[in-house]
């Protein structure tokens, strides 16, 4: 028998506290697979945010820190500058990054910090009960926008991959999604590329992942994936927004 797939050893046996169908589970798994395949377990340092993924240090057999709300890029800056040879991965959700921690991620990009940011965008505050986030789509109903988000009092969604990609300090910025097997594999390759750029000593590598939150959106997990394809990707188009030039 040849093993096609088995649970990566970088993941512990801890029961994941995510809801059924949560994109965090898929993305955690992809990061663990890459760390295992590239043999980076001894080198990797994960910085976890506040949010649904706050317990993720228990799921990984690698060194981890949990940062203050939104401050993961600041913590990552300190660790990466002190331990240049390690792989520093900053993992953030959209409420954590775009609301509380907008200043930290912007300045990490402006300074061209040499770590990788994995940004999980599910257009809602998942952990606290499905409130509106800066990334919530127009007209999207959440527990704090029961009539749907309106521009009059809540403004417009934020496209982080484009914003970070426009900064000179950013080496690589791409938006991917985890709504189908093909897109999940593309997501894995995008994260792998980001890790490679970091290990080559390049500037900030940023991967935004559009991810389902079935509980927050109030739909079944399979419907949540459909909704990403039909609606969310119109606001958050997939693509590479900053790619290194040839030979860089």
């Amino acid at each position: 028998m040849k093993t096609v797939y088995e649970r990566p050893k970088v993941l512990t046996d801890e029961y994941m506290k995510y809801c059924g169908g949560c994109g965090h589970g898929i993305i955690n798994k992809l990061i663990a697979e890459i760390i295992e395949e590239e043999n980076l377990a001894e080198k990797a340092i994960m910085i976890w945010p506040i949010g649904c993924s706050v317990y993720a240090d228990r799921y990984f057999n690698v060194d981890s820190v949990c940062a203050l709300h939104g401050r993961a890029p600041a913590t990552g800056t300190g660790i990466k500058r002190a331990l240049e040879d390690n792989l520093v991965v900053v993992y953030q959700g959209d409420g954590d990054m775009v609301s509380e921690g907008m200043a930290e991620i912007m300045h990490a990009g402006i300074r061209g910090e040499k770590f990788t940011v994995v940004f999980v965008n599910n257009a809602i505050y998942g952990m606290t009960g499905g409130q509106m986030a800066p990334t919530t789509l127009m007209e999207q109903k959440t527990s704090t926008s029961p009539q749907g988000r309106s521009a009059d009092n809540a403004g417009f969604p934020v496209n982080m991959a484009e914003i970070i990609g426009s900064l000179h300090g950013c080496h690589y910025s791409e938006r991917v999604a985890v709504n189908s097997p093909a897109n999940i594999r593309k997501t894995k390759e995008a994260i792998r590329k980001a890790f490679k750029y970091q290990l080559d000593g390049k500037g900030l590598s940023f991967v935004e992942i559009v991810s389902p939150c079935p509980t927050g959106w109030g739909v079944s997990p399979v419907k949540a994936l459909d909704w990403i394809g039909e609606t969310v990707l119109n606001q958050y188009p997939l693509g590479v927004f900053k790619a290194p030039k040839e030979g860089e």
Partner: protein
Amino acid sequence: MNRVTINEEICKECEYCITFCPKKTILKKKDTLNKKGYYPAIAENLEDCIACGICATVCPEAAIKVEKDV
């Protein structure tokens, strides 16, 4: 015969594996609950399985192991 092993105790019934499996006869929901209160996915009719690994790719819990008979 190819083998699909599912850790039923950590399955959360998201149905991604059932939805994306290219062979619709293999994965289905069990009719009894696991300890956490979900109806977990189970694999049967494995003679149809082509060991593509899509069920394992989409599983958010990393609960599925796929082995190919060579």
